[in-house]
């Protein structure tokens, strides 16, 4: 029998809240974190998209100036979320050789990389500062969290585009089940609201162009959806071997019952229209957690609000859950906070864990005319989840054909 793994700490910094309590309160209320960008570079580069969902609490309101100087913005968000999750878990006595980190990012230190390139062009190589490399490397956030916590059982960085944050939980579960660690700080962080990624995602027609109405731009499942809204931030979860958590009398939010990762091998960016890779991921996560379709009451969907992405996920959910999918409360939380790319899976995992723990599903906003080809039971007003043993799933899919699913069971 595999070791059971439970979740004992949560942290987040997002466009709808700079900590977990604020984010959760807003997620149940239904707010938009998307706003018009006031930066001069929007006009300077004539960007086709003029808005994004920035973190509601700037990192410099939380970190000291000197701390922040040595971290890319993505790492700043990751460290903020990890510190909150660690404090929330309340672990005071730990063998640091048995504490690991699995902290993902989709892109890594893109601000640092591009700022250094600008410096090189404008001022020459001497002005490219020595912290540039450790700040731009994609493992920078995992390394910083490891340093911060004194985590010595390995610091890992799964990178699978927008599935990265969920894949971090998949890895974390494995590390504990296989006995390589007793506690793992899992998460994902991203900070890519920079003109170049905005231009690049725009160029692939992935971003909404609803420039005159940013708060209504992220509208998963709506007939008028026209792309995702770029978000930023981080989510963090403390995974702990059940016996370790019980021994210290920890507050347990839920069990990370099962996880899975699959690859489409279909197209570099387009999702498999039949959702076959996503279906296999859903079935594999349920098999891993010994979960029957009838156990599942809630899904935090990947649902980014792109015209082509939302439907294959529905197809996959129906294939994996059968007719029971009609009884499942589905939340598309990117409607509120935009798409946090490599952080999205981690933040949505925090929301999924809280949904199971608090028996409340977060809201989907901006759904006015539901796409008739996606007849899901979408949570648009306050929804209580049933009592008793329940399971919730969270899906994440990434460019490259990455599919990752986690299953959270109530305890």
């Amino acid at each position: 029998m595999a070791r059971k793994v439970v979740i004992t700490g949560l942290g987040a910094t997002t466009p709808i809240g700079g900590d977990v309590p604020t984010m959760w309160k807003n997620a149940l209320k239904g707010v938009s974190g998307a706003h018009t960008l006031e930066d001069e570079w929007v006009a300077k580069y004539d960007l086709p998209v003029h808005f994004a969902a920035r973190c509601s609490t700037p990192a410099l309101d939380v970190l000291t100036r000197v701390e922040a100087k040595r971290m890319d913005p993505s790492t700043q968000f990751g460290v903020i979320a990890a510190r909150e999750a660690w404090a929330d878990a309340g672990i005071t006595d730990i063998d640091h050789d048995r504490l690991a980190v699995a902290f993902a990012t989709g892109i890594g230190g893109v601000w640092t990389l591009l700022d250094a390139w600008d410096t090189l062009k404008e001022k020459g190589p001497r002005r490219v500062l020595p912290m540039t490399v450790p700040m731009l490397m994609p493992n920078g956030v995992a390394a910083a969290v490891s340093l911060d916590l004194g985590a010595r059982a390995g610091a890992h960085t799964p990178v699978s585009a927008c599935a990265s944050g969920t894949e971090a939980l998949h890895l974390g579960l494995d590390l504990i089940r296989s006995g390589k660690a007793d506690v793992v700080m899992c998460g994902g962080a991203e900070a890519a609201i920079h003109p170049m990624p905005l231009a690049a995602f725009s160029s692939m027609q992935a971003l909404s162009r609803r420039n005159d109405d940013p708060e209504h731009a992220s509208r998963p499942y709506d007939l008028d959806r026209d792309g995702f809204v770029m978000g930023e931030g981080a989510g963090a979860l403390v995974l702990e071997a059940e016996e370790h958590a019980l021994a210290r009398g920890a507050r347990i939010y839920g069990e990370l019952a099962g996880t899975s990762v699959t690859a489409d091998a279909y197209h570099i960016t387009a999702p498999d229209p039949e959702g076959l890779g996503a279906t296999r991921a859903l079935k594999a996560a349920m098999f891993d957690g010994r979960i029957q379709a009838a156990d599942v009451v809630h899904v935090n969907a990947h649902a980014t609000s792109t015209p082509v992405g939302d439907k294959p996920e529905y197809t996959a959910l129906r294939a994996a859950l059968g007719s029971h999918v009609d009884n499942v409360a589905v939340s598309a939380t990117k409607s509120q906070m935009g798409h946090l790319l490599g952080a999205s899976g981690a933040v949505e995992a925090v929301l999924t864990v809280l949904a199971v723990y608090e028996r409340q599903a977060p809201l989907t906003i901006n759904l006015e005319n539901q796409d008739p080809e996606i007849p899901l039971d979408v949570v648009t007003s306050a929804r209580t989840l049933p009592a008793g043993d329940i399971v919730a799933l969270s899906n994440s899919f990434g460019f490259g054909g990455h599919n990752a699913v986690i299953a959270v069971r109530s305890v």
Partner: protein
Amino acid sequence: MASNEEILAGLAEIVNEETGLAADAVELDKSFTEDLDIDSISMMTIVVNAEEKFGVRIPDEEVKNLKTVGDAVNFIAGAQA
């Protein structure tokens, strides 16, 4: 041309910006590594910022000779001369 006092004050500002150390802790006889706990990455950042501030060039092979704040002040004063 900056005086030694002005160079010290400018260096202290750079060190404070990089490390958060109070500027008045940056004194001539203080060792960058032993007393101010400045690692090699911070040291190189300070050197590059000092080059820009004082309009001098501090060669990489010279940096290891700058053990104390006073060494750095003297080098910069000499390089400006």
